[in-house]
Every structure is written in C-alpha cells, then in structure tokens.
C-alpha cells in the first residue's frame, strides 16, 4: 500500500511539473504532427493505402517521440538537485522508478492516441479498426516504451554522452516490442479477427512486464553511489 502511494505521489508530482512547463509533451506532440504531415505527403497513396502502412508509421512515430521525451524524464530532478533529496527519503527505489515510469506512460500514451488520430486524419482512413483493439495493443506497447525510456533515460543522464546515447541504448532493446506492436496494429487497421492479433498482444504484454520488472530491479543499482 505504501509503495502504491509513493508511486502515485511521484507520478502526480512529475505530471504536475510537466503540464506546467509543457515543454516535453508539447515537443513530443509536435514531432508526431510533423511526422504524420511529412509521411502523408511523401507516400504515394495511389500505390499504397493508408490502412496498410499506418501501423508502421504509428509505431515509428511513437518510438521516436518517446525516446526524445525519455531524455528529459529527469530534468526536474536535476534542475536544483532534487533527485538527491528524493533518494534520501524513505521511498523505495522501485517506487521511484515506477512513479517516474507512470508519469512517462501518460506522456507516451497521449502521444500514441494523438498519433493514431493524426494518422487517420492525414491518411483519410475511414475505418481504422476497433478502438478497443487499438487500445489493447497500444497499452502494453506504451508501458514497455515508458519503462525502457525511464530506465535508459537515467543511464544516459549519468553518462558523459548524455542524451545522444539514448537512441543507441534503446533501439536494440525496443526493436522486438515495436515489431510485435506494428504487426498487431496492422492487423487491427485491416479489421482482422482478434485470434490473429492475440498472439502479438500477449508478446507485447510479456515485453511490457519484462521492462517494468527489470527496470524496477536494476534502478537501485543505477542510483547507488
């Protein structure tokens, strides 16, 4: 119960600071719009339909947006040394990780929903598939992206290379997640039955749970001096 309360307190604090500064989520959403806009002009839709390519574009955009946002996960903690005080409080390390990942999840999920909407608009997709099925795929996918982004966001901050290290760390780890996410979303866009989607969805949940579990376990080692 205490852990859940700590997670909630940290996530709420991060989101409150995030929505007041507005910088990170606004930048992620702006990237999403720009990517959808450019894709819509660069692809010849007489050769390929929007429904067939939307899932790849959706996951590519969400992946890049989440990585660009992940680099700033710890900005508020480092602004005036607040992280030192957070670590010195009785809060468990895994609660800190989960609280920050939860706040990240809200940002990534917002971007995913926004991108889905933008793609259907820019590619004039009249029937993008059931919203519930999109949610069933995007939820584990965004949980995985948020957990990995939080974990690698701290690693990149602690390295001399800073945020430039983030793509090199995250891309290899996130390739399977994005692959299964794009596969599942593609089938949703094409109105395939759940039986064809459920296998990828289960794998997405496995990756999401794995990223959350590994991040929670290893976070304490990243924060030890």
């Amino acid at each position, binding site marked *: 119960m205490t852990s859940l309360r700590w997670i909630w307190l940290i996530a709420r*604090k991060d989101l409150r600071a995030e929505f007041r500064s507005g910088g990170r989520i606004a930048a992620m959403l702006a990237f999403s719009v720009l990517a959808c806009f450019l894709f819509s002009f660069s692809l010849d839709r007489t050769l390929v339909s929007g429904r067939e390519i939307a899932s790849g574009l959706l996951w590519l955009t969400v992946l890049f947006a989440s990585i660009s946002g992940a680099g700033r996960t710890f900005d508020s903690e480092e602004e005036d040394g607040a992280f030192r005080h957070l670590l010195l409080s*009785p809060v468990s390390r895994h609660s800190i990780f989960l609280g920050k990942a939860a706040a990240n999840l809200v940002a990534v999920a917002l971007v995913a929903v926004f991108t889905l909407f933008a793609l259907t608009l820019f590619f004039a997709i009249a029937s993008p598939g059931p919203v519930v099925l999109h949610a069933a795929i995007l939820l584990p996918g965004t949980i995985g992206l948020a957990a990995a982004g939080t974990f690698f966001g701290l690693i990149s901050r602690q390295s001399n290379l800073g945020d430039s290290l983030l793509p090199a760390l995250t891309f290899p780890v996130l390739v399977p997640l994005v692959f299964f996410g794009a596969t599942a979303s593609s089938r949703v866009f094409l109105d395939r039955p759940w039986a064809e989607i459920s296998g990828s969805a289960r794998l997405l949940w496995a990756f999401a749970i794995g990223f959350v579990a590994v991040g929670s376990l290893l976070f304490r080692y990243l924060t030890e001096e």
Partner: protein
Amino acid sequence: MTLAARNLVCSYGPTRALDGVDLEVAGDSILAVFGPNGAGKTTLLKALSGERKPDAGRVVADGKAVTGSDPAWRGRVGLVSHRTGLYMKLTVMENLLFFASLHAVAGPADAASAALAAVGGRELAGTRAEALSRGQRQRIALARALLHDPDILFLDEPFSGLDPSGADALATMLGARRSPERIIVLVTHDLRRGLGLADRVVLLRRGRKVLDAARAECEPEALLELFTGDARGRA
C-alpha cells in the same frame, strides 16, 4: 543520540576521497567539518547520511550499524545542501507537501504550514520555487529538511550563495534546533560561520582527519593556518 564513523574509506577510481576517517558526535551538538576543496567533506557527509556506500568501514548510530539501504535510517536523516533540491515548477507548499507525504508525516498540510512558519516563509506558500530568490529557496529547503523532524540534520555548504542576513537567519535556526536527541553535522569551508555554530570541529585534508577537537579548544587562527597551509601545499 550518538553518531559515529568507524574507519570510513571511500574512493572515486584511484582517488581516495576518505582514507580511514573515524569520528564520533553526541546529541545536543553541532559538528562542523572543515577542509579545502577536495578534502573529502562532502563524501564524508554522503557516507554518514547513507547516500554513498563506503568502500570500507561503517557508520554507527546509537550503537547500531546503519546504511543508506535502510529506509528507516533515511527517514531519520534531513539534508540541506547548496543546491536546494526544490522542484522549480511546483509551489513552495506543493514541494513541502510532496516531501511530507514521502516521509509519511502525520497531517502533512499542518506540518508543512508549521515548517514554513518556522523559517518565516508563510507568505511564500503559493509561490513557485522558480520565482524565489536564492535566500528564500534556502529557507524553504531548510523547512523541507525539518518537516519530518529528523534526528540528524546534515548541511552541505548551506551558507553558499546566501547574503549575510540570510546566513545569520539560517545560523539562528540551526542553533535553535539543539537537543539531546538531535545531531547537526555541518560541512563548510566558511570558517567563521562554522566556528560560530560548532561544538566540535573536524578538519579534513586529502581524505584524512587532521584535527578533531572541541570548539573551545580550537583557535581560529591555528585552524586557519591548518586550513590554508594545505591549500598552499597543494598549489
């Protein structure tokens, strides 16, 4: 209340920041740790508070070994450093409520209001931390550190960046916190301020303790000589 360091060793790569430091401080006292830059003051404070795991040696509180991995120990510790540790986008009250809730302080709103009043910052409650002056932020940082009434208060260069009146106010507040159940450990290279507050003085040089004496036994001039002599030696 007692706090002791037993043969603490901390290294950063090949550099020994602390090299077998022993010290002991009892309740109702303020320990001032002096030393030039790179002497190991902040590392000592981090090792004592549990922020840094020592490579060897141990920290003992009330006869029991303590480590930073123990949440109960972290709950007994308060910290004020030269970086205030406030969340800039949050208001002063939101900052205090956040930390009060993390420490499971009973009645967090009342505790935050009381802590704010104690540092003379009641009118700042609704102001975002980013809008405060350096001195105001430091006062709020002290309020945040005192919210959970810690047994041991660590201060890492707390006077850094404060104007004389702000530093005087901070010194007065620290002096008022003396009690047999509480210890204050102050790390600074502001000799005048530190000596004005301290009951006990430790001087570090290149990770080693070169002086450990009661304040009454310390001549400021001799301490200054030890302090600056090292700086000249390194130059």
